[in-house]
């Protein structure tokens, strides 16, 4: 069983690198379209949301399937959320804005979709640095409290997408629906311990 888990973890890790591999293929084939920077930003933004949904799925999956192993993969998936969110942010700051800090500051304070996106990343940061076993032990009950921030992050992340879109809300609303379901599944009425 132990061997199996390690094996699965490695597999998940490798699969989780797909967004990096796929963007490399796009770049290599010069297939990024007319607005390559927007393409790369959107790519990592989308994968951040996907990993966020995956991370939030582990707890409901454990309960629904009655298999506790799901929870073992949650931390790694959560770290990938931070990883892809950071690349997304770096693309915005570096590729898109060439580290023009004043322009970036203005963009953040003037546009609510940028603001909530940036907030979501800021909130991810303490979660990422407290993800080690040592920090879990050190923070005790506070660790659990702190990591409930992921719910706020999920909502901000979806809002970031909803507010970006000009008219066609189809895609952001799909993420909104998935995140809503994953959050509703955590409500008490779904969580009564089976005796």
């Amino acid at each position: 069983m132990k061997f199996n888990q390690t094996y699965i973890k490695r597999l998940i890790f490798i699969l989780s690198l797909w967004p990096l591999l796929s963007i490399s293929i796009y770049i290599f084939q010069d297939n990024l379209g007319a607005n390559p920077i927007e393409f790369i930003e959107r790519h990592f933004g989308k994968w951040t949301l996907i990993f966020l949904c995956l991370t939030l799925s582990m707890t409901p999956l454990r309960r629904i399937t009655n298999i506790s192993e799901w929870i073992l993969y949650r931390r790694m998936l959560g770290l990938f959320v931070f990883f892809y969110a950071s690349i997304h942010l770096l693309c915005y700051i570096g590729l898109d804005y060439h580290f023009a800090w004043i322009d970036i500051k203005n963009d953040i304070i003037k546009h609510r979709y940028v603001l909530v996106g940036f907030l979501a990343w800021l909130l991810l940061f303490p979660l990422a640095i407290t993800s080690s076993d040592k920090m879990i032990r050190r923070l005790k009950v506070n660790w659990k409290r702190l990591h409930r921030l992921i719910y706020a992050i999920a909502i901000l992340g979806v809002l970031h997408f909803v507010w970006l879109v000009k008219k066609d809300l189809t895609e952001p609303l799909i993420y909104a629906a998935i995140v809503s379901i994953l959050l509703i599944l955590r409500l008490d009425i779904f969580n009564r311990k089976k005796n």
Partner: protein
Amino acid sequence: MTNIKKITSSEITPEHIYNDRRNFIKNLGLILSSSALSTFANTGFGALSSLPSFTESKDHGNDKLTSLKDITSYNNYYEFGTSKSDPHDHADLLKIDPWSISIEGSVAKSLKLDVDDLVKLIPIEERIYRLRCVEGWSMVIPWVGIPLSSLLKKVSPTGNAKYVEFVSLKRPSEMIGQKDDMLDWPYTEGLRLDEAMHPLTILAVGLYGKVLPKQNGAPIRLVVPWKYGFKSIKAITKIRLVEKMPVSTWMKANSKEYGFYANVNPEVDHPRWSQATERRIGESLLAPRIKTEMFNGYQKEVAHLYQGMDLKRNF
């Protein structure tokens, strides 16, 4: 006795662009059925099978032209879908032959004609313009068209004509994006009469020396280079001279974000996108954003139209 060089459409197209176009047609062929492709190949891009000879633009400026591939594959044209690639993928469904355009309303004599007649009536010319999208990106496009003022003069607007309203087409069977009611179809736009009569304002029927591709608004579209791209309505069927300010489609959709004037203005920010800078399409991955200029760099030509107006309120 004119020293303006007359050139044919084939002369102006550099070979690599011509090859791009061949590739573009080839790529389209993957999407289209073979019979549709042969129709497409026979008629070129639209109702006009070719452009009459035209005057070459004398004003290339310092701007590098955006490639034909980018101009024809990255479009906002919600009639065919909301993704930037949808117009390229779906615009071929639109039948633009026959097509007539009527000029009516407060005019001495209304006019209804097809694009073929129009380009016989008024000489076409090339205009290289920057196009700035409200979303913060821009292109440099060699349009071919006629000054709108030349057409409006033919119908003699009456004293009641204060504004010009433009109406596009509603045909959901061919404009598949219209199966969704997200905008109030048909797309409608408007200009003040003096904006419409301004020499920079054109009706375009061509691009890169060739007939206008459907995804770019064939058979005929408006181009107002100092305004955000959404003002430059595509596939025009009606031009109406009216007394009251028309309500454009985007004003109806979201009047807080999209005003009637929509002049490019780096000082008036949009709630979604920064208008201070823009990304030039086709530049390298490492190219920086460029500063957006007042009236998209056409300040000298058009600023007088807005003298004394509060451009923050009249956005």
